[in-house]
């Protein structure tokens, strides 16, 4: 039964999911845009962020500590992964990059399963954000409202880093032409490592922020990865604004379709992706030649 409050609350759910997807997709898309590597372990990184945060939460009991720990842990994972493995694949074909990151995704998921078992884990939101907020005509979980704000701030930080710093300028230049950036005498190796770290960090942050909404399992990243792909295809590879727009569109589609029939959420998402591919193959905000 679709009622007005039900519809609005689904809109909010879509916004929260969309904001998260936007953040994760931004990480994926700047890594791909700059390094040319499609990171199939990105969903697993989202999951790792959740578990790293969960471990910190258990040790400290503080949600803030959990968020910081989840984010920093993934920064470290990203830096290490680039340094030890991904770096050796820049010169290899795209397919090899897909294979190795896919393999790493399995290793991440199975390591977590080994350490934490397959049972689902929950992280409680901080007391201040627990409970329900009355919005006048409806009640809505406070934490979900907060997530929209938290993620919006994170996206803003990412935006400022990308568009207002020297590093961001190098990254954006690298997305257009990595070889040229290399020729300009910029230490691309270090930039690449940092970009991978930032992308991983964004996924990890999203993972722990999401943990109080959906309980953690080792497989939680898999569905997110697929949704992130759709976001990137809709928004356009290598485009930060595209990732944000695509994320919001995908979030609303999933959420509003679920209200009618959850079974069709993916079908609608896929239909939207197909539509974009038909009308504008490079994505809504994608540029030519980024493939």
């Amino acid at each position, binding site marked *: 039964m679709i009622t007005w409050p039900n519809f609005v609350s689904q809109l909010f759910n879509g916004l929260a999911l969309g904001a998260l997807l936007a953040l994760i997709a931004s990480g994926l898309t700047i890594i791909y845009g700059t390094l040319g590597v*499609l990171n199939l372990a990105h969903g697993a990184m989202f999951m790792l962020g959740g578990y790293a945060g969960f471990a910190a939460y258990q040790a400290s009991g503080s949600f803030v500590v959990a968020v910081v720990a989840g984010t920093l842990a993934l920064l470290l994972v990203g830096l290490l992964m680039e340094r030890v493995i991904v770096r050796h694949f820049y010169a290899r074909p795209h*397919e*090899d990059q897909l*294979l*190795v990151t896919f393999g790493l995704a399995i290793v991440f998921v199975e*390591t977590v399963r080994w350490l934490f078992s397959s049972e689902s884990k929950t992280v409680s939101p901080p007391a201040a954000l627990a409970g329900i907020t009355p919005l006048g005509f409806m009640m809505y979980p406070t934490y979900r409202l907060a997530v929209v704000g938290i993620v919006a701030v994170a996206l803003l930080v990412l935006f400022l880093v990308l568009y207002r710093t020297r590093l961001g300028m190098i990254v954006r230049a690298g997305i257009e032409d990595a070889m040229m950036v290399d020729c300009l005498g910029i230490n691309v190796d270090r930039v690449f490592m940092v970009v991978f770290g930032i992308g991983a960090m964004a996924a990890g942050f999203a993972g722990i922020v999401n943990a109080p909404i959906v309980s953690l399992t080792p497989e939680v990243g898999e569905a997110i990865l697929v949704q992130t792909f*759709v976001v990137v295809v809709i928004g356009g*590879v290598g485009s930060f604004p595209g990732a944000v727009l695509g994320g919001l569109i995908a979030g609303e589609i999933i959420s509003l379709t679920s209200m009618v029939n959850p079974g069709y*959420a993916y079908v609608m998402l*896929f239909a939207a992706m197909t539509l974009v591919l038909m009308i504008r193959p490079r994505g809504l905000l994608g540029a030519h030649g980024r493939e």
Partner: protein
Amino acid sequence: MSVDRIDSPRRPLLVAGVTAAALIAAPFVLPWLGAAPNTVNRILVWGLFGIGFDILFGYTGLLSFGQSALYGTGGFVAAYLLTRAGFPYIVAALLIGMAAAAAVGYLVGLVALRRTGIYFAMITVAIAEVFYFVEFNPLADWTGGENGLPGVPTPSVNLGFTTLHFTTGWALYPFLAFCYFVGIAIALRIVRSPVGVVLRGIRENPLRTAAVGHNVHGYKLAAFVIAAAYAGLAGGLLGVLQAFMPPEAFTFETSGQLVIQTAIGGRGMLFGPLAGAALWLFLQDFLQGPLGLGATWKLVLGLVFVVLVVFLREGILGGIRDLYRRVARRKGEEDAAGAEPAGTPTRPPAATPAPSREHAGNGFSGPIMQTISLTKHYGGVAANQAIDFSVDAGEVRGIIGPNGAGKTTFFRMLTCEVLPTAGTILFKGRDITGMDMTEVCQLGLTKSYQVNQLFNRLTVRENVTIAALAALRGKFRLDLMRRLSDISGLDGRVGHTLELVGLAGRRDTPVAQLAYGEKRRLEIGLALASSPSLLLLDEPLAGMSPTERAETVRLLKSIGQERTMIVIDHDMDSLFELAERITVLQEGRVLAEGRPADIKANTRVQEAYLGGLNGAQA
């Protein structure tokens, strides 16, 4: 380096024979090694699934992470027929499932193949996920949702005098082994057919494959449908094997496992997925059983996979093949040391004139190529502005102009690689504006590129074969079971082209091992092999040594006797020697046109090149 040779007629028979022998011997040998029959059967199903996937990934270069959609489709269609619909014919049901998967594959391919590379990978993942959810929800009444379809019967085949019952374990094995054998025998034909050769071309260089006149999208779709058919049959067999069609067939994990097994076993060899499945499933049994690792087995296998991808690029079979080749080469070198020096030295280009070809332009006179006010803008930059240009059949035309004059853009418009902003292109009097590169090549107009566009991991002969096939078979043809040797005129055309460009002695050398000058000549050879009536050459002499230049000019002269050519180059002495008329472009416009002597004397041309004394722009 070439993944395999396309032209040894006896090898497929030998391979098929060895495969048959191995499949027959397996039930007698494998039990001694402690293999459970159920594991062996599962390996066969994965191996069959992987044959089609290898044609898609290993041969065509399209890495799909969505094969589970087709595996599941074939499996559930067959299982539904055999259980709920009460359809009694098992083999027929399997074939219907296979056909359904192929049909679905066609539709999926239409969407997924709109993009290439990582986009293709992402789209296939998304599509497969949709199938998974559709199976669980909207179609749950037909598919059993999360319960799957239990009660899939085992096959029995009535031979007239007796009926064979294939039940479980080793009793089911012959049925699966037979399916695998038929699958591999057909695949061996496919990869050695003209289509198989074109698919390799697409893997190595899709742009050039299209430019020599093949419908790349059509062939990719064909590869996708072939892979879907194999997936569908394998899915059906999974139901038969387990007496139950599990919904897990549709999961991303299925697609992932297929990719992993193919990468581990080795791609582009057809048997890779079988080898990979054997390793994966045996290790799984071993880690879970004797080692008692329980659920951690997958972590170990994941690590094994990562290590293999990092260190053994071509997989297990690829590693064995490379080792074998290294040993064979060493042995070959020892043998050759006593006899004559190894390898025939490169011969300079033969100066024999090319024979006349079907559409070599001799049936056509007058202007073969005309442009009317041809214009190309890139944003605010006008690369070409209102170019009126005409070349007569039989002419050799040179185009010169300073860097940035718009020469290459002009060529790209003529071959329909880029769409003009305004203006018309007429080829043999026909308006070709807005056609695609492939069609234009089929009409007899092609180009050799300024930067080499070759099929790098294939041999010289294979390179030229790809181009010649487009001329002999048209832009799209599904002659999947045809042998290359059955195509009349192919050997002659390839041999002749190689003679002409002086690479006959290097025919079995992989392109990656050629010297630069040889690559440039092969670049021209690819254009020649499609027997164009109008050949465009974009800086054929660029980067060559003086000797190579002289040789190449000689080659171009002999080619020019039989067809119309337009040549861009910066080497004016060579071009003035070669061309009958010269067109000078500057800043996107025609500056001058005339015989070489007139151009040399033209003061405006001199200004354009020397900067001029009157302040004209360089």
